[in-house]
Each structure stands twice: as C-alpha cells, then as structure tokens.
C-alpha cells in the first residue's frame, strides 16, 4: 500500500467467486465489506490492474469509488499546479546554487595575504557565480602555493554556498639556538665608526677609523698570551678562546640610490563608469542578483550592507550593495616635471621602507634628463648600525680534544 490504494465497488448477487479469486490470486486488499448487494474493497495500486482483470474474468464489473493514501495527495496536488511549479523552480534553484560559488571564505587574519589570495583566485576564474564542477580545486591549491610565498599551506574545500580557503601562514623559522656559537661583527657599510658598545668579543677597529664592507670590526676569536721566565728563558703560552661577539657599532656612511622614471608610462585612469552589484544575504550565503560579472578593471568605491534588526539583534538575511568604479590602464607620455615628481615619490617610498632604522643626516639629489627617461640620483648621509653578526666555523683540528675545556671557555666568555 506504499503508493496508495483504490476503492472499488462491486455489485452482484453472489460473491463466492470473488472470494475464491482473491484467495487464489493472493491479492493485497483491505477494508473489504459486504453491504446490501455490493462489496466495497480497497486494492493497492500495484495490484489494481490485476484485480480488475481478474474481476472481469470472474464476471464482475468493478467500479472505482475513490482513492486513498498517497494517491489522494497526488490527486490534490494536481489541483494546485502552483505547488508543483514552485517545487520544480526550487529544485532547479537548489541544483544551480549548490554548484555555483556564492561566497569565498578565506581563513586568515592577514588582510594583505587575503587580498593576494583573492587576486590569484580572480585570475584563475574563482569568482562569485563561477560553476564549481568546472573548477579544479587541487590545481588551484597548487597555483596558490606557487604564487604566494607568504602562505606555508593552502587548502580549498567546498562548502554549502561556495568555497572555503584555509591558509597556514608561513612563519619565519627561528634561526636556531646560536647563543654561545662564535661569531664576528662584520661591517655591512663603507663608513666611519663613531660609537661602540661592546659586551663581548675583541675590538679590531677603534672609534674614528674607517671600515669597508666585510671588515671584521669585532672578532669572536680572542687570543691571550702568557709569558713566564725561567732559567731556560721566556716561555709563552698562547690560549685561544672563541666567543660570540655581542655589541653595537654605529657610524656614519653614505648610500647612493638611483630612481629612474621613463617618460612613457602607464597610469591608472578612472573612466567614470560606475556599476552597482546587488547581493541577497541569507545566513552565510551571498546570492548575486546579477547574471554576469562585469568585464574590465574595477575598484570598490563602497560596500553597503542592509540587515534588518529587531531589538538590537541583527537578522541573518539582508541586502548588500557594492559600488564599483571602472578604471583603465592608459599609456601616458609624461613631461619632465611630472616624471621627476614620480621619481621623487619613488624615493620617498624607498626612504619610508628601507631607511627607517637610520638617522638621516643629509640628502643630496642630482637630476639627470636622458632621451627616454629622467634619473634622480639621491645620496643619503646616514648614521646608524654599520655592523652585523657573521658566524664563522672553527676547523675541527683546532678544537681541543677535551670537550669540557671548550664548554668552559665558551661559558667563561659569556660570563665576562
């Protein structure tokens, strides 16, 4: 009776043949009642054709009086075509939206990394509205790993309303345990030493002396000599200790940097076209209200979200509007003044990024105009640290055989 049953009315004087037929055929039926001159019987839909055929063979004329069970539901459903239409539309929409990227979740707090991942995804066609079965998530994972060095591991998984990108950021590995390992302080700039704060190591250059790149300013190899006089003469014992040079060596130095700006350059220019994209947000799903993502280059002007609130509680459905401004990369021929202005901007950015740790004492700019470009040569006079640590290796044959004595030496040097 899974598909429902049909109620039959059979009229006649004697129903003995009908009873025999029902037992012989093994038909499934229910609620068989004999009233005055007629029998009412409900036969399962699977058996109704067989039942009718057998009844006709036995000389009865069964009449359908009604339907029961799920058949009644089907019959009622046909009287309301809107429900059928709505169900079909819903099924189609569910089928479509479950295979389309509506939302891209990137699991990282680093906004720069998130933007970088978004750009790569866009380049590879992973945008809102893209058909997921046509996209290869494994290949995209590899592409992201190749293009983004800041991420140690990237995994893409399909979620209900789109894709989720899990990121493990690359954390710079610690250099390891190097306290106690011997090292020199080596000059990293050509300059003059003006200040020394030395905690350990042997100073090789004094204040006021000039150094060039690679010179050892503080040595991690300390050689001490003791002489004793006896009847045989002078006995000199030389003792070598290897220490980690700790200290700060500051000095003045100059650095010259050239900034070149060609006259023919590409500039970002707004075309004046604005486009508004509308989305409907239902829980975590962001359903686009447009069929096609606009072509071209766009930058976001603003993003507006309207979510209704009841008593301060934000409801999980609303509307999002994103306003985009179209821009174009146009080739532009700069004049001399504009080119120098851009070169100066580059110099400013360089100072902000690379010279923040130094004290800028003086700056000289020299402008040069070539055939296709302008060149700005800036000479910086700086004051700051001019040495950096440089580990060195001790050949095995120099090391004392007794390890304890070596450890003791190193320990002593740290305590000094």
């Amino acid at each position, binding site marked *: 009776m899974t598909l429902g049953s049909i109620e039959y009315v059979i009229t006649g004087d004697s*129903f*003995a043949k009908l*009873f*025999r037929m*029902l*037992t012989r055929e*093994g*038909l*499934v*039926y*229910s*609620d*068989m*009642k*004999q*009233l005055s001159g007629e*029998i009412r019987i409900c036969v399962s839909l699977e058996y109704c054709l067989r039942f009718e055929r057998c009844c006709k063979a036995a000389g009865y004329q069964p009449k359908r009086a009604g339907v029961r069970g799920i058949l009644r539901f089907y019959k009622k459903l046909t009287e309301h075509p809107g429900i059928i239409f709505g169900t079909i539309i819903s099924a189609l929409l569910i089928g479509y939206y479950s295979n389309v990227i509506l939302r891209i979740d990137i699991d990282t707090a680093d906004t720069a990394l998130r933007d970088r991942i978004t750009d790569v995804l866009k380049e590879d066609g992973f945008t809102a509205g893209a058909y997921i079965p046509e996209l290869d998530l494994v290949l995209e994972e590899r592409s992201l790993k190749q293009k983004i060095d800041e991420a140690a591991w990237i995994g893409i998984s399909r979620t209900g309303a789109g894709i989720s990108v899990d990121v493990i950021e690359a954390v710079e590995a610690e250099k390891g345990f190097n306290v106690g390992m011997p090292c020199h302080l080596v000059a990293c700039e050509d300059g003059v030493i003006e200040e020394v704060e030395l905690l350990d190591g042997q100073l090789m250059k004094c204040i006021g002396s000039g150094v060039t790149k690679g010179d050892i300013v503080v040595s991690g190899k300390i050689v001490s000599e003791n002489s004793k006089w006896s009847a045989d003469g002078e006995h000199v014992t030389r003792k070598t200790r290897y220490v980690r040079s700790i200290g700060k060596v500051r000095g003045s130095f100059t650095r010259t940097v050239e900034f070149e700006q060609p006259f023919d350059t590409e500039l970002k220019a707004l075309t004046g076209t604005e486009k508004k994209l509308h989305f409907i947000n239902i829980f975590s799903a962001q359903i686009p209200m447009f069929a096609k993502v606009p072509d071209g280059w766009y930058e976001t002007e603003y993003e507006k979200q309207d979510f209704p609130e009841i008593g301060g509680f934000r409801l999980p459905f609303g509307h999002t509007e994103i306003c985009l401004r179209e821009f174009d990369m146009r080739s532009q021929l700069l004049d001399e003044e504009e080119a120098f202005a851009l070169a100066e901007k580059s110099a400013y950015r360089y100072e902000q990024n690379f010279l923040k740790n130094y004290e800028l004492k003086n700056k000289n700019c020299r402008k040069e105009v070539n055939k296709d470009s302008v060149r700005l040569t800036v000479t910086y006079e700086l004051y700051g640290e001019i040495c950096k640590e440089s580990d060195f290796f001790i050949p095995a044959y120099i090391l004392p055989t007794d390890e304890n004595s070596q450890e003791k030496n190193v320990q002593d040097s740290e305590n000094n």
Partner: protein
Amino acid sequence: MGKTPDISFFGKTRELLCLSSYIKIVDNSSALVENCRQISECTEVCVRLLTGSFEIEFWGSGLSLSSYAEGCVEVRGLIEQVRLVSRGVRRRDNDSGKH
C-alpha cells in the same frame, strides 16, 4: 464434535508442517487468521473463513476484512463472538440435512 485422539498422525504432520490455523485475537477489535484457505462470507455482522480443518466464524458489528499476505487475513471491527466448527462435523451436518 468428534473426539480428538491423543496421538494423531495427521495432526502431528500438520503441526510440523505449520499447516494448522493460527488465530491471534487483539481485544475485541481485530483478529488475525493464518493459513486461511477460503473466504465464505464477509458481511458487516459475520465473517466466515475456511482453514485446513476448521470453519471460523466471527460475529460482531462493522466487520471488515483485509489481506496483506497469501493465506493470511485480518478481521477488523467490533468482534463479539468467535466460533470454530470442525469441517468434518460441518460436512456430516450438511450431508444429514440433505438426506
């Protein structure tokens, strides 16, 4: 009703082959009869079924019959009386009536 012998060969065989009729009655609302051979009558007050060795009569009101498996029928309604008549006795009564 004839006297049932203590050891009956046919009775034991029927029992071993599960050919006996099994009747399960739930209160006075339904009765399930297994190994039903034939339906003799099915009215609102009386349902008469034939099994291997008995004729079973259900008397009551609003009775109806359902069958969900071969040889198994269910009587539903308000059952007031259940009567079992041995088919041998029935045949003898009918034969004597004829003569």
